[in-house]
């Protein structure tokens, strides 16, 4: 068993993760001794556990080689030669795009290219590899190929060596490279966005702007056209003008990105935005949910927002703009629960005022009297918890962004009779 644990440890080391041997032994031992799991099965289970813990792809592990490669034995390949996951390769390529990463574990992510192809790359924060720069060419030694949903990407790891090279690598001309050359990517329907890393242009309306707490993100929300809606992220580094909710735009050269099987588009330095005169009709993605309000989460009630970027302030400070004189707002982050699903829902000021009966002005004076913003949340909890509501809105990630909310305060007698009839039949 110790041998198995050691081999698991050394495999993870190759991927740049140092897991204490005793952690592996303990997990393995519990499965094998206490739960009578065959060693092979236990090994798989332990590996899966630590892969998940460390956000690693299975291919990287199971496809990887059993010894740490040195770059002399790792083959130099062209990007179009990457056709399976879990291979150690050396690559000469140019960094075409760096995307800002909203995930702490990722230090750099983007696109590199050579004369044969372009490919997504990921550099993890845990590996101390110097940052690469856009437009420069590098020799990437000992990187690992990964297959993800039928597409390939490369991962830099602990054994990776990155050397800048003088040579300016020529890059295959493709929509991806074209975007940097000022050639707009083709206009597509929102519903047709289905390829990770693809450059597209869309004509869409900003249907929602959300709160965001990442300083690298200037705006985040939902855009839509007649075919559907999609999340968008506008990076601060893109230095693009602010979008207004309800306005329609032509978004040139945005990048489709997939995360957890959901697509979003990111607006970066090569993107441009033109406001349109027309009002683009957005496909309705409205859903209805009815349940009891079982929680009003922290971050609800009276909050302050940064006057510049509208982010909710934390302890009087904006993630990006620091200490600012915030403007007051009301919102409710509620959990509605129907007994089968716990549904997080976000209510903006008007709706928060409507159901709590507390206006923004009321809230401000309540907070002033109590010298505490928290009294507003307390009042809202008292008023709302345990009651039944029906909301309509759009489902985004795990939230419903609520458009309307109605308290349910009367028994539907027809429904009750049906329920009784149903109960009589068993």
């Amino acid at each position, binding site marked *: 068993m110790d041998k198995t644990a050691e081999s698991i440890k050394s495999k993870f080391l190759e991927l740049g993760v140092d897991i204490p041997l005793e952690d592996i032994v303990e997990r393995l031992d*519990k499965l094998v001794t206490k*739960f009578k799991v065959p060693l092979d099965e236990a090994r798989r289970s332990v590996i899966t556990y630590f892969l998940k813990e460390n*956000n690693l792809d299975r291919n990287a592990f199971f496809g990887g080689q059993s010894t740490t490669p040195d770059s002399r034995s790792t083959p130099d390949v062209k990007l179009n030669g990457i056709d399976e996951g879990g291979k150690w390769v050396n690559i000469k390529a140019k960094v075409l795009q760096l995307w800002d990463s909203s*995930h702490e574990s990722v230090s750099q992510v983007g696109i590199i290219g050579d004369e044969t192809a372009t490919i997504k790359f990921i550099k993890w924060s845990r590996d101390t590899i110097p940052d690469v720069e856009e437009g420069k060419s590098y020799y990437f030694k000992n990187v690992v190929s990964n297959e993800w949903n039928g597409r390939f990407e490369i991962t830099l790891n602990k054994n990776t060596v990155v050397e800048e090279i003088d040579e300016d690598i020529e890059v295959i001309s493709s929509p991806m490279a074209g975007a940097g050359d000022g050639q707009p990517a083709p206009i597509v329907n929102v519903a047709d966005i289905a390829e990770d890393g693809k450059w597209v242009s869309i004509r869409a309306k900003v249907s929602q702007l959300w709160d965001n707490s990442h300083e690298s993100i200037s705006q985040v929300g939902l855009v839509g056209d007649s075919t559907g809606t999609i999340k968008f992220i506008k990076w601060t580094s893109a230095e693009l003008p602010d979008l207004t909710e309800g306005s329609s735009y032509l978004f040139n050269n945005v990048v489709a990105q997939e995360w*957890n099987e959901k697509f979003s588009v990111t607006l970066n330095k090569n993107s441009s935005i033109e406001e349109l005169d027309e009002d683009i009709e957005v496909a309705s993605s409205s859903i209805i949910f009815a349940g*009891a309000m*079982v*929680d009003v989460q922290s971050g609800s009630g009276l909050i302050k927002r940064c006057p510049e970027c509208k982010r909710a302030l934390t302890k009087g400070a904006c993630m990006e703009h620091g200490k600012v004189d915030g403007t007051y707002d009301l919102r409710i982050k509620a*959990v509605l*629960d*129907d*007994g*089968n*699903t*716990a549904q*997080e829902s976000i209510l903006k000021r008007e709706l928060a005022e409507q159901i709590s009966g507390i206006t923004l002005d009321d809230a401000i004076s309540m907070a002033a009297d109590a010298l505490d913003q928290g009294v507003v949340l307390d009042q809202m*909890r*008292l008023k709302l*918890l*345990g*009651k*039944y509501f029906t909301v309509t809105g759009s489902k985004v990630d795990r939230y419903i962004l609520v458009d309307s909310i109605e308290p*349910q*305060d*009367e*028994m539907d007698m027809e*429904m*009750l009779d049906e*329920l*009784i009839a*149903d*109960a*009589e039949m*068993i």
Partner: protein
Amino acid sequence: MSGYVREVSRRVFAQEFRESNLTFKDGDDQYSPQYLLTPTGAKVNRLFIVGTLIEKEDIGTDSEYWRGRVSDPTGSFMIYAGQYQPEAAQALAECETPAFVAIVGKPSTYTNAEGTVFTSVRPESISIVDVATRDLWVADAARRTLERVKDLDNMDSNVVKAKEHYNTDKDHYSSMIREALRSLKEDL
């Protein structure tokens, strides 16, 4: 990436809750959530109750420790709130009895020397509601319980486990549901 999924608040009548005594952990480390499996196969880590608070008492010695009894059409729930449930303890301290209350809480079990298991609820929140909300809850709990009773014939692992442990009598619970629903009609 957040793997956190909030536990759903299950709907269970007091009678079924009282007749439950099987707890288990889903997973094998100390952070694995604990569940109470009820006779109809509800896997309960959190529950939502609306009923009538009929008794309350501070049974604490050093610090406040509140016990309350909340009834629904089928029986009553015992609830306990102390220093680790400050909001709920305060709500119990301040409220009058009887009162319609809505409670979100976690199931808890206690086994006495004779091996009898007692179930109770550790409230996360207690709020005062009106009679309409109470009636809506009875219908709500009846619907979810009815769904589970109908599913007693399927091979879902929780159902299988529940039937093995409790030897669940379908008629017992379907008549409980019918009585609870009829009580709603009688009141009107």
